[in-house]
């Protein structure tokens, strides 16, 4: 009973607030219909891999921009997000209004399987082409794939600024780096698999690097947190293939963890967002998606949220410009396209993993 009264009170507030949410600049006038419908829906349910603490500023600002649309934010890992979405859809009960995941391959797979609704966002034109999959899945961030190292313990001359330099370092100083290098395990971690297959596409010598990993007795991990922690502590000297957003957050607290944006090429991956076909509140979902891609949302992403903005026309501490500057212009965004599905092809996947485990054994 009490809940109902509260809901009634809330909907009054909603109606009162609706007038405040004007159509954002540059949007067609018809967008007012989306806003009104979203306010009527009253809430937007978000499934995301970005943890709630990191997304708090975005959620707060969205609610301020669109009074009357409350955000229900649930953070999950990318596999959980995938499992939950397909089960909810199969049960015919509707699902989240927006999914936002750091596993772009799984997001594109969901879209290819018909779980995502096509939606030409009014912001679509402002995004770089690599961040748009068939006007359905959009890249909201541009997270660089970096190398992190322990500044205190790593000799300055050793710090690799390119992939080639890393390969050379591990080949020349194999003994000194025995057990001191960490990376995601592509056999046990989807992110690791995704990053390392991209390396193979970008760089001919990638298999050589994997062999060099084998020779230095690479320590493999399933979580970035553990790797960053152990590099900071000096248990390892460096970790390969770390999300720039995690590295930047830690570097802000402990400058001893230093970041390399490889100058031959720095991969950029994205946190991909779409509105599910079976969203319960599709208008609110679109509103949230548009907000994430808007200048306002992207500016926050490049600022307080400490993620990297996908749009190139925003300023902040973490933007594409930051990466370009650090990487000397050699930025290689991993496009949201059907090629990502190749990585999920079972035969190709098992072949890569076989090669990888051979390389680690030094064969």
């Amino acid at each position, binding site marked *: 009973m009490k809940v109902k009264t509260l809901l009634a009170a809330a909907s009054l507030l909603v109606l009162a607030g609706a007038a405040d949410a004007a159509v954002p600049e540059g949007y067609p006038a018809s967008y007012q219909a989306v806003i009104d419908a979203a306010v009527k829906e009253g809430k937007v349910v978000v499934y995301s*891999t*970005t*943890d*709630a*603490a*990191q997304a*708090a500023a975005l959620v707060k600002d969205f609610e301020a921009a669109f009074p009357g649309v409350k955000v*229900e*934010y*649930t953070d*999950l*890992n990318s*596999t959980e997000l*995938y*499992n*939950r979405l397909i*089960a*909810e859809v*199969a*049960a015919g*009960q509707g699902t989240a209004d927006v999914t936002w995941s750091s596993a772009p*391959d*799984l997001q594109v*797979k969901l879209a290819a399987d018909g779980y995502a609704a096509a939606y030409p966002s009014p912001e679509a034109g402002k995004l770089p082409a690599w961040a748009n999959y068939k006007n359905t899945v959009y890249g909201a961030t541009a997270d660089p794939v970096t190398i992190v190292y322990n500044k*205190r*313990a790593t000799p300055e001359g050793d710090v690799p600024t390119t992939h080639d330099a890393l390969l050379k370092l591990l080949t020349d100083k194999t003994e000194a780096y025995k057990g001191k290098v*960490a990376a995601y*395990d*592509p*056999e*046990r*971690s989807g992110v690791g*698999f995704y990053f390392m297959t991209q390396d193979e596409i970008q760089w001919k010598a990638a298999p050589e690097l994997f062999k060099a990993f084998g020779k230095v007795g690479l*320590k*493999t*991990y*399933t*979580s*970035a*947190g*553990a790797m*960053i*922690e*152990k590099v*900071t*502590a*000096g*248990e390892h000297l460096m970790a390969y293939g770390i999300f720039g957003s995690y590295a930047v*957050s*830690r570097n802000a*607290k*402990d400058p*001893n963890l230093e970041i390399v944006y490889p100058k031959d090429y720095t991969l950029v991956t994205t946190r991909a967002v779409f509105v599910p076909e079976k969203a319960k509140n599709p208008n609110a979902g679109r509103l949230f998606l548009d907000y994430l891609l808007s200048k306002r949302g992207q500016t926050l992403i490049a600022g307080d949220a400490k993620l990297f903005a996908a749009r190139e026309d925003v300023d902040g501490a973490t933007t594409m410009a930051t990466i370009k500057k650090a990487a000397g212009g050699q930025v290689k965004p991993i496009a949201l396209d059907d090629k990502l599905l190749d*990585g*999920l*092809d*079972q035969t190709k*996947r*098992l072949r890569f*993993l076989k090669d990888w485990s051979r390389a680690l054994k030094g064969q």
Partner: protein
Amino acid sequence: MSFRSFRLVTLTLTVLAVLAPVLLIVYQSFLSGPFFQPRIHLSLDAYAFILDDEDFWQALRTSVFLAVGMTVIAVPIGVLLAFLVVRTDVPGRDWLEPLVIIPTFMSAVVLAFGYVIALGPVGFVSLAFKSVFGTVPWYIYSEWAIALVAGLTHVPHVYLYAASALRNLGSDIEEAARTAGAGPWTVALTVSLPMVMPAVLYAAVLVFFLGFELFGLPLVLGDPEGVLVLSTYLFKLTNKLGVPSYQLMAVVVVAIILIAVPLIMLQRRLLRHAARYVSIRGKGARKQPIRLGAWRWPAFAVVILWFGFTVVVPMAGITLRSLVTSWGDGVNLLSVLTLDHFRDLAEHGDVVRAILNTLGVAVIGGAVTIAAYTSVAVSIHRWNSRWAKLVDYIAMIPRAMPGVVAGLAMLWIFLFVKPLNPLRSTMISVWLAYSVVWFAYGLRMISGSLLQIAPELEEAGRTVGATPGQVARHITVPLIKGGMISAWLLIFLIFAREYSTGVYLLAPGTEVIGSLMVSLWGTGAIDLVSALAVVNTVIIVAGLAVALRAGVRLHG
């Protein structure tokens, strides 16, 4: 309601709640795709794939190794600690007991990470050791180290069973042996131990079984070397194929169930000697602690040594981590001290809600759970029926599902069983999931208490004309009230650290501390994770202290 219909309703609900997720998983294992998708058919392909997968056999071997290692370590130490605390005049025996059970309520991931900070290659203990002896002779990421840590942290499981059996022995026999000139150790080995052997073996089987569902320890300590156990193999399986393959995961669960069934049969055989547990008789037995004499302080040192390694070392690691910005080789810890992590934690909006939810599900949920477990235990108590046996068997099976799979199965149940839909995304679903998974554990504690009641007490009730329902209400349940309260305390501790079972049921508003820790861990916010772990431990220790002060005993 007559006792008969009470029994019928209770057991039907129990069997449904427990078997639904298990049968769903077994069914899934024989399909060609997710059970809810169109165009799937019955198939044995998943079995063929798993049985052909070298990694599966490797994981199974490691799991067996860990289970054996754990049992070999945990059982003797658990029995020894129980004997010392319960039957001897070891110093501090009153406050040692709560200390001994502390590891049961510490999250395994946190515990493991605490070991990394203390005993890892650049842990503070390792660095101190190195500065004195020049080298660190241990490596905590090996299978042997994981077995050792797992064994030591499972000591409380053995302790609880052994202690309650020992507590119920009359001391007259031990005294007789002492009078005849036997030393305390001779008494322990030749008199006390044989008397509690069924309980000890029972606990040994339990620990062995728990070895197959270890998750947090191998996840953290096994990561760098890629040590795979059955529960972490599930991740590798998902990754091999790119998308989760439910039928393959289900086959692994079926394999664990197949390991569990003979173990449950073994436990039932052991319990046939239930008469040995009888202690609440019509007349009481006198209890006198054995005098250890010169052995008093060495015995005390053994308990403290175990406690130091199992609790103090990892907890010191985590506490230290929560107070510094950096640690490890070349860091002067005094220069990096900070309270920022706790401040950041306070600003994290979900934390307060997560703490309240955790307390809610652990205190209130725990109480309801105990009431439910008691209903089941009373229903099958002294009921010589095949149905009673069946309930006993199936109780253990949900525990055979590793947390990640149990969580998924629970999501499916709440999604696809229409009447349950409204409960999804409420704390009720999370609570129900916890209760089902920990059913075996709780049921054993309650039925253990019930077994201590000698039949003559209930028979007396029947003789004066009470119905079975009245006997249960007025004699049986009141007699085990103490046992129920201690079971409640333990369930509180377990629920306060549980999360994986509820992970798919979480929605805004239903966060618990455990789930929060996992999502923060994933993004590398180990500052916050360690601060949260410290807060969580403080809450639990406070809860324990309040309960003990209020007169709750750990044994009924």
